[in-house]
C-alpha cells in the first residue's frame, strides 16, 4: 500500500510546538497545492489543536531529497524549534490503522473525543475541493468516516461527561430533565463556572442570572453568555426563583449557608435545587446537603463522575480495536483488488500483442479466404490459455486472504515482466 502519514501530535510534541505547526483553514489550500504539484499524487492535511497530520501518496519522481518534515515545517514561519523528533512517520497498513485510530477517538487527548471526526471531514472536503484526492484517498477517507461512525454507534466510546463543566451540566439534566423552564444562577466569573453556564445554555437552559462582587465583570459576562445581572448582595433574594446555582468564587468563608438555603426552599415550595460548588475553599456550607430535595456537589464529586466515565470509555477500546481490524481488512482487500484488475488487463494486452505480431509475420502463408479464420482461431487459443489464470486471480481476489492475492499478483507480474513493460 503506497500510503504514508507524517504527523505531529500531543503524543510527540508539547502545545508550544504544535501551535507553530498549526495550519488554519486559509493556509491549508496553498500548502496542499504546493505539495501536490511537487511531491504528491494525492494528499489530505489535517490540522487541529492537538495534531497536524499529512496523509499522502507520493509521486515516483520529483522528490529532491529534503525530508518531508522539513518541507512541511518550512511552510510556516518561526518554526526553528520544531525538529524531527517531534514528528512520526508511518507507512502502508500502519498509516491506515493510525488514521482509523484517530477517527475513532482512541488517539485523542480526551479519549472518545467526538470533535475530531468533523475536523477530519472538513480537512478531506478542503483537499477534494483543491483536487488533491483521487481513487485511493477518497476510498480511504470514506472508510475512515465509516470507522468513526461505527465506533460511535456500536460502542459507548464517546458517552459520558469528561470535563468538570460538562459533568455539572450532565448532573443538572439528571435531576431536572428538561432545562427549558429552569433558571440558573452563576456566582463569580471563574472559567469553570462560565463553561458550566455555557454548557447549560447549550442544553436549552431557560434563564441565566449572573452575579459577581464586581458588577461590571458580571455585565461583561452577560454580553458573552446572555441572561441578566443580579446584585451580589441581594443574590439570596433570587434563590427561591433559581433551580441551579453554580458557585465559583474566591472567598475565605461560605457565601451560602444552610439557613439561606432552608429559607429559599420554604419559599420555593421545596422544589428540587441543584448547587454546584466549584470554589476552593468551598463556597457553600456542606450541611446544605442534609436538606431534602437539595443536591449539593463540589469539585470532587464532579471529578468522580469524570473518572468513572473515562474508565467506561477505556473499557470500550477492545470493541473499537475489533471494528478497526475488520475495516482494515476490508480496505486491504479493496486495495489489493486495485492491483488485480490492471494486472489482468496488462496480461491480456501482452498476449494480444504477441498473437498479433506472430500472426502478422505468418498470415501471408495462408489463403486470403482463410486469414479471418486464422485470426479467430488464434484469439480463441489465447483466450483459452488465459482463462484459468484469470479466473483464479479474480476468485482469489474475493475468497483468499489478502496475502495470497498479493502473492499471486506479484508472481504473475514477475513471471510475465509486467512491471518492466509498464515502466518502458
Amino acid at each position: 500500500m503506497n500510503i504514508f502519514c507524517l504527523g505531529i501530535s500531543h503524543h510527540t510534541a508539547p502545545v508550544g510546538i504544535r501551535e507553530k505547526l498549526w495550519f488554519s483553514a486559509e493556509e491549508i489550500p496553498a500548502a496542499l497545492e504546493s505539495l501536490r504539484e511537487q511531491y504528491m499524487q494525492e494528499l489530505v492535511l489535517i490540522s487541529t489543536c492537538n495534531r497536524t497530520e499529512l496523509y499522502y501518496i507520493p509521486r515516483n519522481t520529483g522528490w529532491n531529497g529534503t525530508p518531508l518534515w522539513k518541507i512541511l515545517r518550512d511552510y510556516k514561519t518561526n518554526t526553528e524549534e520544531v525538529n524531527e523528533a517531534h514528528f512520526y512517520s508511518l507507512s502502508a497498513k500502519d498509516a491506515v490503522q493510525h488514521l482509523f485510530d484517530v477517527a475513532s477517538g482512541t488517539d485523542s487527548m480526551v479519549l472518545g473525543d467526538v470533535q475530531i471526526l468533523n475536523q477530519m471531514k472538513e480537512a478531506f472536503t478542503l483537499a477534494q475541493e483543491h483536487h488533491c484526492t483521487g481513487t485511493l484517498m477518497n476510498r480511504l477517507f470514506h472508510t475512515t468516516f465509516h470507522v468513526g461512525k461505527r465506533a460511535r454507534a456500536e460502542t459507548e466510546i464517546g458517552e459520558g461527561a469528561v470535563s468538570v463543566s460538562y459533568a455539572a451540566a450532565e448532573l443538572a439534566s439528571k435531576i431536572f430533565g428538561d432545562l427549558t423552564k429552569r433558571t440558573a444562577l452563576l456566582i463569580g466569573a471563574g472559567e469553570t463556572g462560565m463553561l458550566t453556564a455555557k454548557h447549560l445554555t447549550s442544553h436549552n437552559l431557560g434563564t441565566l442570572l449572573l452575579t459577581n462582587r464586581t458588577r461590571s465583570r458580571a455585565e461583561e459576562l452577560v454580553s458573552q453568555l446572555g441572561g441578566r445581572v443580579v446584585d451580589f448582595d441581594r443574590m439570596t433574594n433570587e434563590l427561591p426563583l433559581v433551580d441551579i446555582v453554580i458557585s465559583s468564587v474566591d472567598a475565605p468563608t461560605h457565601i451560602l449557608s444552610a439557613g439561606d438555603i432552608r429559607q429559599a426552599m420554604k419559599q420555593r415550595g421545596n422544589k428540587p435545587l441543584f448547587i454546584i460548588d466549584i470554589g476552593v475553599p468551598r463556597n457553600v456550607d456542606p450541611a446544605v446537603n442534609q436538606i431534602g430535595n437539595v443536591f449539593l456537589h463540589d469539585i470532587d464529586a464532579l471529578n468522580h463522575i469524570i473518572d468513572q466515565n473515562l474508565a467506561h470509555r477505556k473499557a470500550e477500546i477492545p470493541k473499537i480495536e475489533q471494528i478497526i481490524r475488520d475495516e482494515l481488512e476490508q480496505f486491504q482487500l479493496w486495495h489489493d483488488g486495485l492491483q488485480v484488475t490492471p494486472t489482468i488487463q496488462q496480461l491480456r494486452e501482452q498476449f494480444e500483442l504477441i498473437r498479433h505480431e506472430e500472426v502478422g509475420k505468418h498470415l501471408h502463408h495462408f489463403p486470403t479466404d482463410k486469414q479471418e479464420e486464422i485470426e479467430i482461431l488464434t484469439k480463441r487459443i489465447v483466450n483459452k490459455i488465459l482463462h484459468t489464470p484469470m479466473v483464479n486471480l479474480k476468485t482469489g481476489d474475493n475468497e483468499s486472504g489478502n496475502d495470497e492475492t498479493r502473492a499471486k499478483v506479484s508472481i504473475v507480474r514477475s513471471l510475465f515482466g509486467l512491471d518492466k513493460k509498464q515502466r518502458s
Partner: protein
Amino acid sequence: MRTLISVIEIILPVFYFSTIWAYARAFFSGVKTAESLKTPLLFSTVVLHFLYIIFRTTEYDHPPITSVFEILSLIAFTIAVVYTFIEFKTKNTSTGYFILIIPFFFQIISSLFIKENSEVPALLRSNLLGFHVTSALLGYAAITISAVYGFLYLMLYHNIKSSQFGLIYNRLPNLEMLERMSFTATVFGFLLLTVAIVVGLVWMPKVFGNIPYTDPKLFGTIAIWLIYAVGLTAKKVARWQGKRIIVLSLFGFAIAMFSMTIINIFLSGFHKFF
C-alpha cells in the same frame, strides 16, 4: 381451542422471559441489539397475552377471575399493558426490566398451577363483576407501577445525594421523568380504582342485598382511595414534589398490598369468591 390455550400457557412465560432479558441486557450491559429488540418483544408479549385472555374467556364462558391463578395472569397482563402505555406516552424505555419482572413471575406461577374449575358459581359469570375486577386490577397494576417508579426515584435520589455515579445514575431516566412516570401511573390507578369502587358499590346490593359496611375490605379500599386522593390533592394544590410525594405514594401502595393480600384472604367476609 383448549390445546391452543394450553400451548399459550407454556409459551407466554417464555415470551415474558425474553422480554425482560432484552430489557435487562439493554439496561445493565448497554447491548445495542437488545435495545432495538426489547419494545417489539414487549408488544408481541402483550398481544399474545391479550389473545390468551380472550381465548380463555370465550372457551370457558367466563372472565378469568374464578381462581387465584387466573387472577395472577390477569394482574400480569394489566401490569404489562399499563407499562406499555407509560412507555409509549413518555418515550422512555429504560425502566422496563424493573416493571416487567413482576408480570413474568406472576405468569409463571399462573401457567404452572392454573386449571379450569369444573364448577364456576353463577356469581362469577357476572359481566358487571368482571368489569369491576378488571378495572380494580388495572388500578392496582398502575399503583404497583407507580410504586416501582417511586422506588427507582428514591434509589436515584439517594445515589445523586451521596455522589454515587454508577450504573443506576447512568442508566435510569432523570428524577423529573421518574416522578412524572410515577405520577402518571398514580393518576391512572386512582381513576381506575374509583371506577372499580363505583361499579362494586352498584353491583354489591344486587348480589348481597345489604351492603356489609363494616367489612374490613371496604375500610381498606376506602383508606387506599383516600391516601391517593390526599396525595393527588397535595401535589396539585399544595404543590408537593419530589421525595415527599413519592414516599406518600409508596405508603399508599403498601396499604393496597395489605388490602389485596391479608384483608382479602383472612379478614374480609363478603369479598371471597373462591
